[in-house]
C-alpha cells in the first residue's frame, strides 16, 4: 500500500509545493524509506526526460501553414467586410434605393378593383369556381363535352 505522501512527491520534485506543504513532505521523507526510493526514481526520470532528443519540425512548416491560411474560405465577417467597402457599398445602395422606389410605384399602380371588371366573364367564373374545376380535373373531366355532361348532371340535381 502506498504512503499518503506519495502523490505529493512529483510536485515536490518539480518545486510546485507551497512552502508549508513542502516542509511537511521533507519531514516525512526523513523517516519513510519507501518515499525516499520513489523520490529518487522520480528525480532520475525527470532528468532523463530532459535528455531526450527534441523533435524538430520541418523547415517548410511556415510556408505550408501560410499557404493553408491563404486557401481558407473567407469567413462571414470577411465577406461582410468586403461587401461594406465604400467602392461597393455606394453603388449597391443606389441600386437598392432604385429597387425600393420601383416597388413603391408598382404598389400604387398595381392591381386595382377596376381591373377585375376587365377579366373575361368565363375566366371570372372559372376563377370563382376554382375548387370545382380542380375536382373535375381530379375526375379527368377536362374536355368541353365532359363539362357539358357535368353541367347537365347539376341541372338534374337541382329541384
Amino acid at each position, binding site marked *: 500500500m502506498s504512503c499518503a505522501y*506519495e*502523490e*505529493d*512527491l*512529483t*510536485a515536490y520534485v*518539480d518545486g*510546485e509545493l507551497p512552502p508549508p506543504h513542502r516542509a511537511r513532505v521533507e519531514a516525512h521523507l526523513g523517516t519513510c524509506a519507501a518515499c525516499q526510493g*520513489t523520490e*529518487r*526514481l*522520480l528525480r*532520475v*526520470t*525527470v532528468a*532523463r*526526460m*530532459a*535528455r*531526450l*532528443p*527534441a*523533435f*524538430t*519540425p*520541418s523547415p517548410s*512548416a*511556415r510556408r*505550408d*501553414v*501560410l499557404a*493553408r*491560411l491563404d486557401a*481558407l474560405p473567407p*469567413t462571414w465577417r*470577411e465577406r461582410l467586410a468586403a461587401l461594406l467597402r465604400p467602392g461597393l457599398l455606394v453603388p449597391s445602395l443606389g441600386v437598392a434605393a432604385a429597387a425600393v422606389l420601383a416597388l413603391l410605384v408598382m404598389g400604387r399602380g398595381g392591381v386595382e378593383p377596376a381591373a377585375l371588371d376587365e377579366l373575361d366573364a368565363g375566366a371570372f367564373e372559372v376563377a370563382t369556381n376554382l375548387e370545382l374545376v380542380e375536382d373535375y380535373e381530379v375526375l379527368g373531366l377536362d374536355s368541353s363535352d365532359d363539362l357539358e355532361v357535368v353541367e347537365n348532371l347539376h341541372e338534374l340535381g337541382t329541384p
Partner: protein
Amino acid sequence: MEWDPDTQALLKVAAGDKQAFAWLFDRHHASVARFAFRFVGDPARAEELTQDIFVKLYRHARAYKPTAKFKTFLFRVATNHCLNEMRRGEYRVARSLVKAPDTDADEDAAGAVEVPGPDGDRPDQALSGRELEAAVGVALGDLSDRERAAFTMCRFEGMAYRDIAEALEASEAAVKSLIHRATLAVARRIEALQAGTVPARSRA
C-alpha cells in the same frame, strides 16, 4: 493596459494580420510540434497536427481574451485539437510503434548515449537513447490522454502546474495528480525495461 508581445500579436491576428501570425508561428511552432509529437508519437502526424493547431489559432484568434496568457491559450487549442484527434482513434496504432524523431542525437542514440539508472551514474544496464525514447513513447501511449497532455506540457515544455491547469481547464490539484501518475508510470516503464522484464517496443 500593457500586454506582452505575444498577446499584442494575437490581437493583431484577430484583426486579420497575417504578418503577426507568421511572427507568432516562428516563435511557438517548435513547442507545439514537440507537444504534438509526444502526444501522438509520430513525427509526420505531429507536423500535420501542428499546422492544424496554428490554422485553428488563426481562425479562433477572436475568441482569445487577453486575461489568459498567450502560451496557455495556445496550449489549450493544441490540447483540445490533439485530444479530439486521439478520440477519433486513428493514432492508437501509431503510438504502439513509436517513431523516434530523426535528429543528430538519434544517431548517437544507436548505442553511444548512456542513460543512468535510478540508483546512480553507473547502472548495471544503461539504456541507449533510442531505447529510452522507445520506452518513453510506449509509456506515454499507455497513459490517459489528459495524463499525457499534462506530462508533456510539464516535462517537455517546462510549464508550471498552474498554467497546465488553465490549458487543460482543470484544477491545480487534478493536474498535480495527473503529472504524478504519468511521471511514475513512465519511471516504472523505464525501470522495467532496464531490468529486462519488458521489451522496448511492446505495450505494457
